[in-house]
């Protein structure tokens, strides 16, 4: 195999941010080498490739490193022009997708995991308050997404998934594991029917299904994080 198109992904099995890149590489049919990082003992290469954040994922293409999952997704889209597109052609539609991706990213980074953990650790009023915060954010998203799915339930024939699908399923695809580990209902079909049906439909798409972390392993990890790092985000 020539060096012209060497793609290496540095990741961690439980990271939703890494999963986004994996799903994207799969649906575009891009062959790549995967390197699992031990985040408690990061490799020299990782620190060299991502000196600013020292985090996964990092995609290395022909020796050049790219960090930040959403930046990597856009890079993949622009570099491999054959194969399915994950962003709309129209600039306005593309901007809308970027707006919502940024919204989910901000919410997930800042507080979603923290809110969930504090909800899991608390009871009574504090618990109610923490869950209320989570649900409010999901509701804003649910309302915004009605624009994308005017007919209601999303369907994904031909694995035709896009940027926003990838962002969503990377964060919530394993919600059942999150819910089991934290003892909470996060994506409730009654509260957020669109998000629920969307995530469920996405989990049936082969590229997504293949990238889902093993359920029990995930449950164990989340329980560990909950016990040991009450105010840390889940960012790798």
């Amino acid at each position, binding site marked *: 195999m020539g060096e012209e198109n060497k793609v290496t992904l540095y990741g961690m099995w439980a990271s939703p941010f890494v999963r986004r890149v994996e799903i994207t590489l799969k649906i575009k049919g891009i062959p790549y080498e995967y390197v699992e990082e031990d985040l408690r003992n990061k490799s020299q290469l990782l620190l060299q490739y991502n000196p600013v954040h020292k985090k996964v994922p990092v995609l290395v293409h022909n020796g050049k490193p790219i960090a930040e999952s959403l930046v990597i997704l856009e890079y993949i889209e622009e570099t491999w022009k054959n194969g399915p597109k994950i962003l709309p052609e129209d600039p306005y539609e*593309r901007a809308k997708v970027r707006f919502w991706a940024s919204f989910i990213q901000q919410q997930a980074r800042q507080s979603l995991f923290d809110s969930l953990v504090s909800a899991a650790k608390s009871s009574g009023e504090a618990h109610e308050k923490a869950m209320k915060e989570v649900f409010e954010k999901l509701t804003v998203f649910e309302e915004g997404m009605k624009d994308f799915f005017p007919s209601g339930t999303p369907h994904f024939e031909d694995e035709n998934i896009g940027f926003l699908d990838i962002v969503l399923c990377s964060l919530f695809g394993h919600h059942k594991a999150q819910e089991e580990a934290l003892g909470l209902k996060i994506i409730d079909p009654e509260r957020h029917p669109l998000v629920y049906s969307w995530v469920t439909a996405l989990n049936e798409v082969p590229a997504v299904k293949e990238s889902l972390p093993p359920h029990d392993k995930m449950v164990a990890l989340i329980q560990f994080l909950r016990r040991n790092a009450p105010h840390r985000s889940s960012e790798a």
Partner: protein
Amino acid sequence: MEEVKLLGAFPSPFTHRVIWALKLKGVKYDYVEENIFNKSHLLLQSNPVHQKVPVLIHGGKPLAESIVILEYIEETWPQNPLFPHDPYERAVARFWLRFGEDKLPAFWAFFGTVGEEQEKATKEAKELLRILEEHGLGERKFFGGNEIGLTDLAFGWIACWLEVLGEVAGVKLLEADGFPRLQRWIEDFKEVPVIKETLPDRKGMLAYFRYRRSTFIGEAASYEAAS
């Protein structure tokens, strides 16, 4: 030619990013100054999620989030490109755009704090500026290379807001010889004709940010006094 309208606020660095991009590309637009303490119906309707400026309305279609707006402007009006052509260089530019946005609360935490908390926040802000100095700017004249690009516009707040915020909060972040590259970048950035013509009035900014700081620390100061 479809109508372009920008809803903004003069003290907002986010608004200025969009003004600069539109002017650099020679795009005609209508500007509406919003009173952020009394937001217009149009603003609330156009940006229901965040209810903030800037909002760009192109041919009646609204867009919010300044970084999203910048990329939209670049794609819609390709003249005078503000983004590199090469996908890898674009990825580098987007990396810094993302860095700037994600770290913004940390960059500005010094402004809303006092005492020990402010010291800690100031230290963190300086570390972030150090990262920009060494990794972001490096040997380049501008973040965008020889000419300014979207990343420079996104960090435009460092060129004039940082100093104002610092004066109001009683903190000096860019010490004399500590950040030679960033200092040089600030001078070069402010000399770009479009930027020079549109920098917000310093007196107005001082007044506005003094007011904002007083609302932030009113509580903090009285808590400090009580403890």
